[in-house]
């Protein structure tokens, strides 16, 4: 704490009064609360506005964030949101994301501490995307949109400050990746030819939901020549079928983000998400012998992969154990024949889909065999 600072009030969150004339941006840097970029100094008014958007009750505990297991109350969430530059209207998305990340199947404790580079990817569906001005279009993974940037940043600040995942201390990632600053997009439902992702999973179109996946960075898939689904999807299969992404050796889940042109070309042939997932799963993967260099370093079993995989040299090794473990989204600008493959961390973490406000899937859509119709 800065010399001369005085405690202003008792409570769980220590608010103090720094010496007159203190440069607050530098003060927050000095405390070690920053992700590397300047923080927006919170004020009582800004913190109160976010808490009001969450329903008040500053000390209500939302979750505990591993590996430090700090208590995330509404007030602490609000402070981190303000520091990240969020507007109060983003609060329900950030709250839902933190509850999804701390759900047991996600294994945030492992995600935070692993030597792998995985970082939580957040994908938002539903009306809230437009209500708060999220970008689901051109340069969707890039810079330039306040909501995308600061929601992802607020999550990272909480993973650092509340979860204690400071690089080198509790976050042991060998390399990390740029998504550890912010990694948040929205699905482009307006230009997608398919039902929104959350509708496919039983939510109503008027619900809003967040999807979280422990993920590597996006890997671009270029295909400017194919005018049918197999041609486009074969390129994505190629991106999926490396021996060195973490899915290849650890299974689990991955995501595919179809660009608009690719998605529309595929849909024109009558293919649904269900068909896409199955094609990708069937035609991607590696030969077992390629994963382990033809046993140059001895015979390897790999206990992380499912027991039912054949451990034989010419056996096909799927990238993930099931077509349902390939999570297909549509996003990006309307021009450009690009998609992205996003490897996950592995079977050590399961993605989580959670509605804002915690509403359960309502089954409002007409869903048949994994495909839902509006």
């Amino acid at each position: 704490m800065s010399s001369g600072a005085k405690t202003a009030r008792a409570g769980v969150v220590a608010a103090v009064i720094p010496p007159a004339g203190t440069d607050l941006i530098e003060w927050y840097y000095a405390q070690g609360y920053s992700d590397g970029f300047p923080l927006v100094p919170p004020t009582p008014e800004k913190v109160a506005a976010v808490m009001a958007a969450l329903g008040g009750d500053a000390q209500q505990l939302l979750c505990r964030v591993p590996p430090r297991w700090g208590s995330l109350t509404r007030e602490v969430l609000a402070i981190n949101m303000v520091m990240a530059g969020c507007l109060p209207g983003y609060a329900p998305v950030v709250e839902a994301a933190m509850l999804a990340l701390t759900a047991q199947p996600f294994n945030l404790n492992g995600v935070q501490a692993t030597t792998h580079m995985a970082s939580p990817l957040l994908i938002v569906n539903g009306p809230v995307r437009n209500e708060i001005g999220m970008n689901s279009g051109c340069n969707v993974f890039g810079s330039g949109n306040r909501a995308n940037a600061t929601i992802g940043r607020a999550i990272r600040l909480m993973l650092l400050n509340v979860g204690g995942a400071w690089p080198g201390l509790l976050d042991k990632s060998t390399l990390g990746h740029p998504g550890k600053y912010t990694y948040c997009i929205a699905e482009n439902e307006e230009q997608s030819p398919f039902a929104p992702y959350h509708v496919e999973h039983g939510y109503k179109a008027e619900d809003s939901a967040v999807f979280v996946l422990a993920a590597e960075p996006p890997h671009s898939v270029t295909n400017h020549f194919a005018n049918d689904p197999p041609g486009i999807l074969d390129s994505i299969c190629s991106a999926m079928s490396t021996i060195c992404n973490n899915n290849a050796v650890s299974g689990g889940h991955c995501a595919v983000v179809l660009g608009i042109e690719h998605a529309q070309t595929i849909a024109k042939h009558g293919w649904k998400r269900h068909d896409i997932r199955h094609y990708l799963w069937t035609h991607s993967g590696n030969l077992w012998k390629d994963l382990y260099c033809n046993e140059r370093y001895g015979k390897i079993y790999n206990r992380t992969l499912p027991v039912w995989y054949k451990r034989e040299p010419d056996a096909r090794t799927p990238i993930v154990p099931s077509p349902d473990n390939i999570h297909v989204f549509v996003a990006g600008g309307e021009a450009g024949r690009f998609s992205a493959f996003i490897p996950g961390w592995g079977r050590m973490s399961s993605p989580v889909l959670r509605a804002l406000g915690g509403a359960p899937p309502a089954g409002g859509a007409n869903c048949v065999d994994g495909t839902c119709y509006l």
Partner: protein
Amino acid sequence: MQTQLVYDPRGIVEAQAMGLAPRIRKIDGLRLAILDNSKWNCNKMLRGVRDELQNKHKFAAVNYFTKDSFSSNATPEQIAEIVANHDIALTAIGD
């Protein structure tokens, strides 16, 4: 000058202090649990240590456990079994 407040964004940690288990003075006759984190080289290291220990000491029992995933906690059932039926436990990370 207007008063400026600054905030702590970390949230509190509610934890109960736990003391260390009593130190073991004699290994012979004890029941040893070995917990393998299931990483690539963990079993090689732990089995080597197990063999070395068994050459030097006469255990009442030596039982080997493997975590389901190296990145997740041991299951509550595994931990309960180790606590209930063993006197000492050995674990390691073999990356």
